[in-house]
């Protein structure tokens, strides 16, 4: 059951060496990683040290890169020795392209966590990045059944977050320094908690780094005790993220004990986890059920049949229709009320133009009048009959 985790010190590496089934370490230079804490030289040294301990070092390049930053970073990376790294983990397609151009043999891990929720897209990334794509990092918004299916169907191995913070928001802007009056402080990371006005008891960890501002959920993802079906489906890697609980300079405190517990007593580990845990979408993506309710208003299903809409009227006097599309009135034309009820269009209601000319047809955007039709309030639709 292979695990990986983020590291930022030799002490982390020593703990990782002692951690059962932990085969890979994720190294985050400040230059490239949105939560990175180590310098460029230190990152390369950590990679060499990881290799010496039998661990697979993966370079994390998960910051998104506007063009100018990309150019500057590209120049800096020309001096790097990538030989120490076993793979590079990318979020920005530009980073993937840069690696393919300059280090075409170095495997890539693509972070497909945000907005990659269908098989076609994931297969597309595999085709686009070709043989250099070694792994896809899948979204925790995918339910278990989907994760299983993708692990089985995709041509590259997959990884998923097993335990750790859930990233909610990634902005390139500095959002904490100013309100916390920390502009002048010599800190590369400004940490804070934020809470909704109506839920002050829910603290969302938020951090500002040189790459922008990141906000996390108040509860951690934890599926360490629910991995069996994923392992059987061929899941290649489970990520354990301990960074928020790590006093600098470490990133993986207790990783040895945690990996041991993941293997021997994962349910206990969940109960003992440093923060409340959940796996909000592991059973089902509950956002899906809400979509039809967001979209469908009572009259929407009928809009394709609507030929005119009531836009104004005066009780007992008249109703004004705005024509939505050209029509000829037929005997079975109906009025659909906002309540969902239907009325036959009265044959004697005297449909006419604004000039008072009787008509049985309308042109798009034309205004037409009728005598007062009881209940035909604003928003009612005139529905084409079957002969239309």
């Amino acid at each position, binding site marked *: 059951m292979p695990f990986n985790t983020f590291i930022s010190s030799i002490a982390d590496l020593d703990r990782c060496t002692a951690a059962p089934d932990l085969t890979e370490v994720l190294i985050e230079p400040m230059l490239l990683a949105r939560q990175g804490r180590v310098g460029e030289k230190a990152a390369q040294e950590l990679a060499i040290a990881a290799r010496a301990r039998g661990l697979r070092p993966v370079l994390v390049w998960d910051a*998104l*890169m*506007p*063009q*100018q930053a*990309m150019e500057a970073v590209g120049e800096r990376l020309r001096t790097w020795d990538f030989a120490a790294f076993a793979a590079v983990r990318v979020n*920005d*397609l*530009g980073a993937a*392209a*840069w690696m393919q*151009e300059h280090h075409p043999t170095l495997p890539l891990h693509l972070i497909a966590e*945000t*907005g990659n*929720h*269908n*098989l*076609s*897209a*994931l297969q*597309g990334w595999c085709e*686009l990045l070709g043989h250099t794509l070694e792994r896809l990092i899948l979204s925790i*918004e995918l339910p278990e059944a*989907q994760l299983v299916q993708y692990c089985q169907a995709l041509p590259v191995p997959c990884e998923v977050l097993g335990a750790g913070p859930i990233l*909610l*928001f*990634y902005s*390139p*802007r500095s959002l*904490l*320094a*100013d*309100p*916390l*009056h*920390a502009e002048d402080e010599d*800190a590369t990371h*400004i*940490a*804070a908690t*934020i809470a*909704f006005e109506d839920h002050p008891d829910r*603290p969302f960890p938020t951090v500002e780094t040189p790459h922008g501002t990141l906000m996390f*959920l108040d509860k951690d993802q934890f599926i360490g005790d629910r991995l069996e079906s994923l392992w059987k489906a061929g899941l290649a890697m489970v990520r354990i993220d301990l960074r928020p609980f790590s006093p600098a300079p470490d990133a993986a405190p207790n990783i040895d004990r945690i990996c041991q517990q993941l293997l021997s007593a994962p349910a206990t580990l969940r109960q003992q986890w440093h923060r409340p845990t959940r796996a909000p979408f592991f059973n089902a*993506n509950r956002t*899906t059920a809400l*979509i039809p309710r*967001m*979209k469908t208003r009572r009259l929407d299903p009928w*809009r*394709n049949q609507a030929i005119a809409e009531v836009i*104004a009227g005066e009780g007992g*006097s*008249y109703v004004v229709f*705005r024509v939505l599309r050209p029509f000829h009135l037929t005997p079975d034309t109906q009025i659909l009320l906002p309540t969902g009820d239907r009325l036959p269009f009265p044959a004697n209601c005297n449909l006419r133009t*604004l*000039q008072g000319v009787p008509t049985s047809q309308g042109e*798009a*955007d034309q*205004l037409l009048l009728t005598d007062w039709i009881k209940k035909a309030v604003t928003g009612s639709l005139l529905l084409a009959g079957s002969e239309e």
Partner: protein
Amino acid sequence: MNKPELLAPAKNLERLKVAVTYGADAVYVGGERYGLRARADNFTVGDLQEGATFAHRNGAKLYITLNAFLHDEDFAGFGDYCRVLDEIGVDAAIASDLGVIREIQRHSSLDVHLSTQASCLNAAAARLWQRTGVKRLIVGRELTIAEAGAIHRQTGMEVEMFTHGAMCMAYSGHCTISNFTAGRDSNRGGCIQSCRIPYFLKSDADSTNRAASAEPITFMSSRDLWGIGQVGEFFRQGICSLKIEGRMKSSFYVAIATRVYRRLIDAYATGQGAEALLDWAATELRSLPNRDYFPGSLDAPAGHDSVFHKHYGVNPGTHKYSGMVMETTESDVVLYIMEPLAVGDTLEFVPPQGEPIVWTVKDLYSVLSEQRSRFRQESVVKLPRATLPDQGQALTPFTAIRHAQAAATTNPELSVAS
């Protein structure tokens, strides 16, 4: 030097016609599914047919947003829908999900414009997207115009940029606050605008709560973008299309924003200089509800001053939407009014071209030609041409009408450049 296209949003058919009437070269709309504005009216297939016909008849293009990030089950019917869009003559689809792009290409011959939701930020990424068959990039709003221009030059791809409207504070597509706190998928049209609300904020480094907000503060809400001072730079950098945000916004917004950018683009293209129009443009745009405009990252990355600190809502704008010209006859101009209207009220007609016509209501008639002294809101009203300046010759259907609001509503310290 190519003249960029002016691309306006439309929530429904009326707004599409407003956008085209006010000079949009292209309009983008949402269908009933697969887009990111679940609560917009959105276009039925019939609406799309009518919209495409109207746009094409007036020399404009119609783009459809298919920019949600879909789950497998969301693809039901998608191929058929793409074929229908093709038959209707929609000019391009705006998409962000690679799976969606692949399905569009499998089932139709629609051009694909990569949505800003995909956060394409550099030329290296653009080249990869180019290999997927994407024709145009709507680059991330985090880019300067110069950076977008560099992407255009290095890839040869069409590059479109937002020039106006509300902005995400997060990298577009990289905010899932709604998903995890409200069970609504922000990338499938369910964003609850969590960035716009106030939060309690407390520094982890300070146990005494120094600098923490005892009162909640709004610190994640972005000011609104305007690019009125950057029109020349869009031209110079070869940006192919200037996009106005706002598929949820009113006909008034569509009319005024389209009118302003139409005039600025045309002025620059004809060598008249858009700079001379800056004060006018700023005044016009401030007539709309706004969140203290700023140039976003168009010149340089947005800084600390890019936050809109108002707790709830927006600045209401200097003017209020009063209504719209619905129809004109030989004898009358027919209005739909959003607000109550009485004889003696002052209205401002804002025609697509030319200066606004300020006019005090003298006579009001119902659609039955009954003279009245006042009408309630949401009424249809006839104005005799004889009572209008120049007999109302400048007034055509879809002309927006506004009236001045009493209070100054915009931060007076914010200049055009800010």
